[in-house]
């Protein structure tokens, strides 16, 4: 999957990124002049209060939203010059998303949910189901393969979402409050799983959180405050 290794050192490289919205005639500036570089294998926490712009930053990092200005290189691709199809391809092959509310498709079985990203790569159904089952085994949900997401517990759903994020062998996992809807024990398990992936498979991990305990376990802590980014511990 990671065939086109970039010339740049950083996997993710943001420079002078700005994002603003026109809302009800008001100009609303969310991010100002954000510069950020994240290397392959890093584990970062993005911290900040509600409304600080951390979710917007995550959306921009995950190519779900386009910044208004600045420069953004993801794995060597210039995001500003990429077509929507290119962005979809990068999301599909390089990025795995884990959301606070799991965002599983309720109509599909666990197995089909995990296999979904592969279907957008032209992988045949048979092959994608095999890979998906393999991934479900890794997160310990193999015996739940044919259950609907609604039949699973919160922790199981998040593990299912992680399996879906991982099935495409991405270089980055973007997690938005992945433990926000889980009790502390389950949250612990999910964090262990994510960190193990970061550690064992060198998957870059970017987690948006407001939980200091989670942030403690990550190598880097990026603070977002009023649209500006500071890195704690790295001055």
């Amino acid at each position, binding site marked *: 999957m990671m065939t*086109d290794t970039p010339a740049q050192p950083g996997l993710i490289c943001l420079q002078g990124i700005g994002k603003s919205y026109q809302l009800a005639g008001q100009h609303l500036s969310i991010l100002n002049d954000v510069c950020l570089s994240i290397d392959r294998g890093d584990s970062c926490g993005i911290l900040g209060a509600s409304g600080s712009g951390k979710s917007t930053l995550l*959306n921009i990092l*995950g190519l*779900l*939203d386009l910044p208004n200005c600045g420069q953004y290189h993801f794995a060597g*691709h210039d995001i500003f010059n*990429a077509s*929507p*199809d*290119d962005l*979809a*391809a*990068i*999301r*599909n*092959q390089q990025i795995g*998303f884990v959301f606070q*509310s799991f*965002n*599983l*498709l309720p*109509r*599909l079985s666990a197995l*089909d949910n995990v296999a*979904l*990203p592969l*279907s*957008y*790569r*032209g*992988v*045949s*159904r*048979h092959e*994608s189901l095999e890979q998906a089952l393999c991934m479900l085994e890794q997160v310990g949900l193999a015996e739940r393969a044919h259950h609907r997401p609604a039949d699973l517990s919160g922790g199981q759903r998040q593990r299912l979402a992680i399996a*879906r994020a991982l099935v*495409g062998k991405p270089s980055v996992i973007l997690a938005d409050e992945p433990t926000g809807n889980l009790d502390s024990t389950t949250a612990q398990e999910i964090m262990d799983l994510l960190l193990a992936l970061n550690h064992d498979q060198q998957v870059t991990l970017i987690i948006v959180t407001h939980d200091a305990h989670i942030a403690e376990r990550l190598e880097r802590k990026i603070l977002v405050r009023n649209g500006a980014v500071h890195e704690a511990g790295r001055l």
Partner: protein
Amino acid sequence: MSLRVEQSLSQLLHEALVSLRTLGKRSVLALLGIVIGSSSVVALINIGHNAAVDAAMIFKDMGTDTLVAQFPPKGNSNTPMRASLDLEAVRRSVPGIAHIGALSVFGGPIVFHGRTTNANFVGTTADIKDAMRLVVRDGRFLSSFDASETYGVIGDQVAQALSTPGDPLKLGDRIRINDYLFLVVGILHNQPRAMLMPVQANESLFIPAEGMRRIFPTPQIGNVIIRAAPGENMERIAHDAASALKSQLTDHDVDIQVPQQMIDGMTRQSRTFAYLLLALGAISLVGGGVGVMNVMLMNVSERRREIGIRMALGARQRDIRNLFLLEAVTLTAVGALCGAVLGMTAAWLYAWLSGWAFALAAGALPLGVGSTLLVGLFFGIYPAVAASRLQPVEALRDE
């Protein structure tokens, strides 16, 4: 930059099946319009086909070389029509007439061995056999030497009605009409219904015209049947024969129908009917299409989040568009299939009620189902494109 392949067929089919399974009751209602539209298109084509087949059947037996003359009274005159006409004079004065015969018809009961049935008594001459294309199964037809005899040639249905399994009506049997016994000298073959003929041979007993007075005091000539020689101009023969007949009549007009004109009239009529059905089909298809569009738009807005998730997972705009387009087409395909079954049933029922033979029109199913699928595609495009134009971040945002 990246190796991208289209979603494989197996994946697409699986998605369509999942969506089909989860389509709600709403879509059943939307399907109603599609079903009506598709069934009326299928029925229209098939009924039109059957009508054409039936019309062709009528004229195959009657032929476009046959003319039927009627004699409406002139003005308010109530003078009865004459009992005989000089048809030989007509034949001489109009070249191109192959056969000519007059019919005077009277209805009543026939009795044979205590069994009674009603029949048309047709007083006629020998040449009517060829003019009406009658085929004799047993015996012979009337001849010019039978004028004063009590001979009869019996139609197939009448013969059947007078027969019982152990006692069939045979040649040489005598049948009774009023107080006269008639000798059966011939039994006709079953004749298909000839719509334009004034009498149906199957339901008739042909007797010599001169003998009509035995069973009916004032016989009148009702029609003259003329069959032209091959390749003649029917309009001219009709015109000439009319003037030749008119010269023999004082109180009656002559009205000759040319089959081609009637065929044209029938074609016009069935075309009007077909256009009416077509309009009905088109309107309900459009109505059904709007219903499908409505369901799909609601579907898209309900599944915004799903669209966002799919986009985050790497679906391109065209993948999302195809997903919803395929759903719309799957939906209409179900409607088209139901409509095809319903339309065929309706066409069969119509044929049955009209007494036609049911035949499947080759174009009915492909055209009906095809036009319905096109409607689904047309009305599915807007919602599908609207879905694909959503920005991932907007689609994922919580309401």
